[in-house]
Structures are given as C-alpha cells and as structure tokens.
C-alpha cells in the first residue's frame, strides 16, 4: 500500500483513539491514553505524550472535536469527542483493518 512504518503506526493509533471515544464518549487526553493502555492489556507500551500529536491530527481532519471542560478533580482539561464524520470513518477503517488482517492470515497460514 506504500505506507511507511510510521504511517501504519499512526494509522493504528488513530483507530484506537476513535474506538476509545466511540465506546467511552467524550474524554480528555490522559483518559484516552490510559484507556488504550488498559484495553491493549498493558502490552502496548507507548509514551503517553504521543497521543497529543495524534489527537491534533484527528482534529485537523475533522474526525474529532475538542472542548475545554472540567475533569473529575475539577481541573481544566480539553475533552475530545467523535464527530459525525469520525463515526463514519470508524466503519471504513475497521473494514480496512479486517480486510488486511484476513489477507495476512491467509499469507501466514501454513500451506497445506
């Protein structure tokens, strides 16, 4: 597909963020990062800070929106939520992933 490795990494992170927002609703950056860590079963060790450029990218594309609000501990925090386009994007990306996974599976399956 001609994507570089970092593009693929970015792509997966983007999808994870979108799914997180879909299931959790509006969430601040810290929350999203923690949630991704939890869901991936603590196997995904990432620098939490890298979530922010990803969030910016998603916001630039119009897939998520942001709004300043108050966190649980009454701190000012920026909350992100899915946009309508974002919801559609999830479907598309999910399809892409599943297709790719299926192709890879066939490739990696032992030949009989």
């Amino acid at each position, binding site marked *: 597909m001609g994507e570089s490795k970092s593009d693929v990494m970015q792509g997966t992170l983007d999808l994870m963020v979108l799914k997180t927002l879909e299931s959790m609703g509006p969430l601040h950056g810290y*929350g999203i990062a*923690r949630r991704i860590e939890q869901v991936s079963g603590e196997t995904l060790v990432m620098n939490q*800070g890298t979530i922010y*450029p990803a969030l910016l990218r998603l916001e630039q594309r*119009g897939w998520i929106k942001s709004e300043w609000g108050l966190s649980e501990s009454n*701190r000012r925090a920026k909350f992100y939520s899915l946009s309508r386009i974002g919801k559609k994007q999830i479907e598309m990306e999910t399809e892409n992933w599943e297709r790719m996974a299926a192709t890879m599976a066939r490739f990696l399956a032992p030949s009989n």
Partner: protein
Amino acid sequence: METLRTILSRIRALFLQGRLDHELGEELRGHIELAIEENLRRGMTRKEARTAALREFGGVTQVREQYRAQRGLPWIETLVQDARYALRQLRKAPGFALTVMLTLALGVGAVTAVFSVVQGVLLRPYDFRDSGRIVVWRERIRELENVTPLLPDNYRHYLNLKAHAKTIEDAAIVQPSGFSVATGVTGNAADELAHPHEAEGMAISPNFFSVLGVTPLLGRSFTAEEAQPGRDAEVIMTWAAWQRLYHGDPSVLGRTIRINDAPMTIVGVLPQSFRFPVMSVMPGSATFGSTERYEFFRPLVPMPSELIAEDGDFNFVVVARLKPGVSIAQAQSELDGIEKAAAVANRLTIHLSVIVEPFAQEIAGDVSKPIWLVFAAVFGVLLMACVNLANLQIARGVTRAQETALRAALGAGRWRLLQGVLIENLLLGLGGGVGGIFCALLGEKFLILKAANLPRMNEIHLSAPMLALALCLSILTALGFGILPALRGLRATPQRLLQGNTMRATGSREAVQSRRVLVAVEIACSVTLLMVTALMARSFSHLLTQERHFDAQRVALVRADLSAPRYSSGSGLPEDPGADRGSLARDAMIDRELERLRALPGVQAAAMTNVIPLSGDASVDGLVRPDHPVPKGLEPMANRRFISPGYFEAMGIPLRAGRNFNALDRAHPRVVILSEKAAQAAFPGEDPLGRTLLHWNRIYTVVGIAADARINDLRRDTSVYYLPYWDFPPTVPVFLARSTQSAEALIPAVRQSIWSVDAEVAIPAVATLETQVADSVATDRFQTLVLSSFGGAALLIAVLGIYGVLAYSVSLRTQEFGIRMALGSSRTGLARLVLWDASYPVLGGVLLGLLGAAGALRWVRSLLYETSIADPWAIGASLAVLLAAALLAALLPVRKAASVDPMQTLRTE
C-alpha cells in the same frame, strides 16, 4: 477533503501560535497532574508519583515539537525564522550589507538601463505589418565603391526593378524633405506663429503606406493620379501634427493647408501608433533622431531630369516588402541581375549593382556596434561587481564558520543551514534589486539626455517587465554568488571548525587564495575596460582636435526656405540658369539679405551657402576637364557648393592660392574655386590656376585654391568645388554670420533681417556652427562619455576589491606580524611583505587583462578614428592608472600591517 481541512487548519494555526502554545502547555500540565493523582492513589509517594508520571509520558519537549510540526506549516515557520535571523545578522554587519546591496544596485541598474537602449534601438521590431519583410534597397557603382559604397536610388532603375522583380511584393520610392507649413491661421504679424513653420516629412510614392501595412486613421492614401506634376496638391499628416495644428478636429479632411506657400488639400491622417524613423538619402549620414520627426507626406513627383537620367540623379530611397518566404539574399540576387541586365541593355559605362538590407539595419546599422560595445562594457562592470560580491561572501563565510559549525553540531541539517544562507542572499538580492530599479530609472534619464540622437530613442522606456527582470537578475546574482562560498563552508566538518584558532587560519587561507584569484580576474576586466575607454577617449580627442581649417566659433547659421511659387517658376533644370523669374527673385532676396546681415551690429562677415555645414556629403559630382577627357564615371568626385564671396571669411577657411570671388565676377560668373584635394585630384602635378573645368555644359575657369576644410564631416577633408551663387541661387540658402558676440545672441537678429526682406519666408533651421560640429560627433561623444563612466566604475570596483582582500588577509595575519616584529623584522619589512603579497594578483591580473584586451581591442578597431589599437599613450596611461589605483588600495592595509603592536597581538588570540 481531509487534506484541504488539514491545510486550512495549519494555516490558521500559523497566526494563533501564541495562544495555541499556551493551551497545549495547559493541556500537558493537566495530563501530568492527572497521572500523578492516579499514581498517588496507587500508593506511591509524591516524588515517586511524579517521576513515574513523567517517565510514562515520555519527553515533553519532543512531544511539544511533534505537536508543533503537526500543527503549523513548519516549512514556512522555518523560513520566517531564518528570515528574521538573517535580517538581524545583516543589521549587525551593515557595512557588508550596504556594500553588497549598493554593488548589486549599481551593476543591475546600469545593465538594465543600457539593455533598454539595446532593446529599444536595435532589437525591437518596428510596428509595421510583418516588419521583418520590409527592406531597403540601394544602388552601388563599382567605380565609386571606395568613395561611397552605397548610393541612393535612381528613379528609372526603381521603375525597372519594380516592374520585373518577382521576389518583391511591392516597392515604394521616397525622398525625405522639409516643408514650410502654414495653417492659414493669421495672427499678429510680429508674432512668430504668423510666419510659416518648417516641418519634416517625406515625398512618397502612392503605395508607401500599403508597403508598410499602415492604414490611415482618417481619409486615404495618395492615388496614382496625384503623383503627376500639377496634380500633387495633396498632403497626409501624422496624428501628432493633426492634434497640434487642428486639435484633433475630425472635419480636417478636405481643408486647405499651405505647404511651401502653395495650397494643398488634406486627404488623410495617420493613426496615432504610426512611427517612422528619420531616413537620409545618403546612407550613413550623420544625425538620426526621434521616430516622431516626420509629420507630413506629399506625393512624390520626380523632376524631369530624374525621369530620364540613367547614370545620375541618384536622389531617392526605396522601401520595399519581400514576398512571403523570400530571403534577402534571393531578392538581392534577383534585383542585382535585373539591374545589370538593364545596364548592359542601355550601354552604360558604369557598373551597377543593387544591395538589399533589412529595414532595421538601414536605420540602426551605424550605431549598432557602438551600442553593443557599451552593453559589453556595462556587462563587464556587472561581472566585476559580482566578483566583489563573491569576495565579500567568502570573507563572510569564514567569519561565520564557527557559528555554522556550532549549529551543525547541535543538529541542524545541511539543508537548513543552506536555507539560512539562501534566505540571507535573497534578502540582499531584494534590497539590491529595489535599488537597481531606482538606478535603472536614473540611468535611463541620463542616457536619454545624452544620447538623444540615436534612432528611436524617443520610444525607449523601462517597462514593468524589464524592471521585474532587473529585480530577478539582482536576486539571481546574489543567490549565485552567495551559494558557492556557502557550499564550501558546509564541506568543512564541525570538529575542525570548532577547534578554533589554528584551524581557522588554515581554512581561511583557502579563502584568501580564492579571493586573490577573484581579484586577479577583476583586475583583468578592469585592464580591458580601461584600455578600451582610453582608446575611445583618444580617438574622440583626435576627432575634435584634428586640424579642420575652419573656425567654428561665433558663427550663426540660419536656413531660409525659398520654395514658394514666387521663387520657383522656371523649368528648374540646371541647364538654363538665371534667366527665369524664380531665379531672379531668389538672387534678389539673397543679395538683399546679405546686405542686411552685413549691416547688423557686431557682424564681421556675412555669407551664404547652399548646404548646411557638418551635414555630410551632398551634391557630389565629377570634375570634368575639357582638355583631358576621362571616361564617364571615372572622373574625380567632389562636392559642389554654391557660395557668396564672403563665405571663406565667414567660415575662417584660408585661401591657399589665387583669389576669392569678387563683385567683378558678377558680370562673368563662370569662375570656380577648388579645395586643395579637388585641385590635386583634377590637376595632378600641375598648377590649376587659370585652367578650365566643364560644368553643366559651360566652361569655368579656376581662379583660386582654398584650404582643405572638414566642412562636411570632422573625420575627413572634403573635396569641394565652389561656384558663385549668382547663376544658380539655391532654393534653400543657408546664411552664415560671424560676429564678435556669441552666435546664439545673433540668431534672433538674423531671423528678423530675413523677415524684413520677405515676411513669408519660412526659417527651417537655425543653429550655430559650434552646435553643428558638436552634433555631428554626438554618437562618438556619447560613446566616450558612457565608456569613461564605466571605466571609472570598473576602477572603483577594482580598488574596493583589492582593498577588501588585502585588509582581510592582513587582519588574519596580525599574530604572524606580531611574531615577526618580535623576532626583529622592521616595519618597512612588514610593509614590503604585504605589498609583495598584493603584487601577485595584481600582476597576474594585468597579464590576463592584456591577453583579454588583445582580443577585445581588435573588435573595437573599426570604431576608432585615426588611433591605432596599440596606441602607446592609451595603453601606458591605463596601466599606470590601474597600478596607481592598486597602490592606493593597498595603502591602508599596509599601514595597518606596519603599525602592528607586537605586545598586543601576542597577548590576544
């Protein structure tokens, strides 16, 4: 769609940087706080919580950078950053910045101004339809080839060629002419406007405008019937004349205007865009001029003699249009063939040929070489300026080497460093370009002032595209000459540069070497330019100081037009002089006027001649001896001039032998005075006095020999035979008056005296003999002036270059000088060292320059007047000036070297 959104968002972010940065900071802080809280809940201590939170987060700075890279347009941001930095650096080195910008401004400005002249005068095609196909054909007589390589055209030959030529679509025959014009608007008799005014124009065949592809704005062109004697009372005027005389009144067609005191009907007005250059019947004649000078056109009606002459009366110019797809060579060979066949058929004793030239070349041919020379010179100056730029950039590169190394060591990419240099040079180029535009506009004004005589100068103007080109040239030059030192600087590895002192000296030694080579190149250019300038200046001074044998001071010239009907009845054929009414009237007028002139206060001598001095050859005819017949066409040629007896005194031409004309000759006017050259040519080895010449079927006796004078052209003695005017009073006499006061002061009085004899006479031209002389060498003066200024500029640039390099190398070697002094060297020893150092590039440059000059001077040879290209004065003077300048340039650095204090230098780094 996404990409568009992204781009818009990025652009927006450019302007909101401050606020967005603040928000990000807040967000990140919030994130860390939340992480710390969670860690605290897990049971860590405050300190552990914080450390863990930060570790999990990753590098904050890196996140910030990634965020910023994602957010804005990083490329533009770095550009802006570099630009701000570059501006700061330039402000810290104002000397460097100003020198670079000034150099660029002067160089680019001068090149642009001169190029606008090149383009306007030489390169731009004329506005006529398909102007590339318009040609001028002239005739050549093999027997006269050495005297006049090209002649005007003969009417019969024109008719013959036009009828038989297949390569020519159409051909028109023309004759430039002056007219005295009166619109019949009467006013106060004392008012100047009441008298007829002279204008210039041409007599043309009816197809002239169609050959050019010009359609009149109003009315029509002439018809074939109107080109007949007696039916030619029509005139066509240009748009400018129409505006001036009739204020653009559209009902002007059919109205009457008085031309040469005869009523003519206006039948056409030309479009505003019509421009025609000044043409002269004799090729290569002195003055050119604005393309708006011709205002009136009349039908061309040849004189009876011109209709029958086969080997004389070459009085016209033919402007023709080639058929599509025909080359000039083809046309010339066809026309030549037809002409030669006709000459054989008519049994002519002279050998004729036809020469065809493109129209543009006919007009600008004589000035194209001088103009290209000036362009080459100005380009040489630009080149030298560029060399100086390169020098400055190299020095700057070395100064910045450490800073560059530091930035490289801190992680700046190659491209980023290069980008910084490029931006700086771009800014310099912009500044220089703006200055260049300003200089170009000034230069244009200067050129238009000093070179008003060049053809089409009135059409020159610096268009916006040309100015934009100047800006681009400046930017490209700055970038080009800044990039090379920058690339060299990037090659060096950071460690070497950061090691400081010793490495600095070595690295800069390379720089000094390259700079010295550049200075040598600069000096070579200077030498060539200086030599060319010196030669041209010498040639020009030769031209002005050659013995002319006439005295130009305090002589007023006033030309009167006696072509009105009361002055010109009679056949006009030279064969029957004197008898007709017109001749008698002209005689009377001239006699009376000469009397009035002599009576004016301050006038020492008054005279009349038929051709204005310093306007080139005219009325060239053969000297025929009845006792020594020579085949026709092979007689010695001389200019014929009709004069009054006071002529030689008025012009200051001494008589060498015999006597002047006097009042007694009036009864027996068949006398002639020859100039020395003419006498030599007609009567070689014999005494001409008392011998006879045959002229217009009458015998004339030689009564005097006048000194050879350069009355036609300062470049050569004119061969003249002078006849008294009484039998053939000219239609356009030129009155001369030598006075004790200034010539300008006398002119109004001369005018008034003419009008006191006849108030209706038009005064076509007034001049002083001095201005005539000056005008005749206008092109040479222009050339010399412009080249001298470029020579001076080149010298200045060379001096700056030498100074720059020397000062720089001395500043690098101060430590070395300190050590030398401490070890016993004297101050003069140091001075000698520096001078020796400087001598290498200078001498090398001079040698190179001499080689280059040898080639360049060969090309210039044809422009020189009586000056050989190996003229010792010119060459010696230019070399001496250059060496003196080099010494001057070395003065300050040598002093600095000699005044080094060893204690100081050994202490500091």
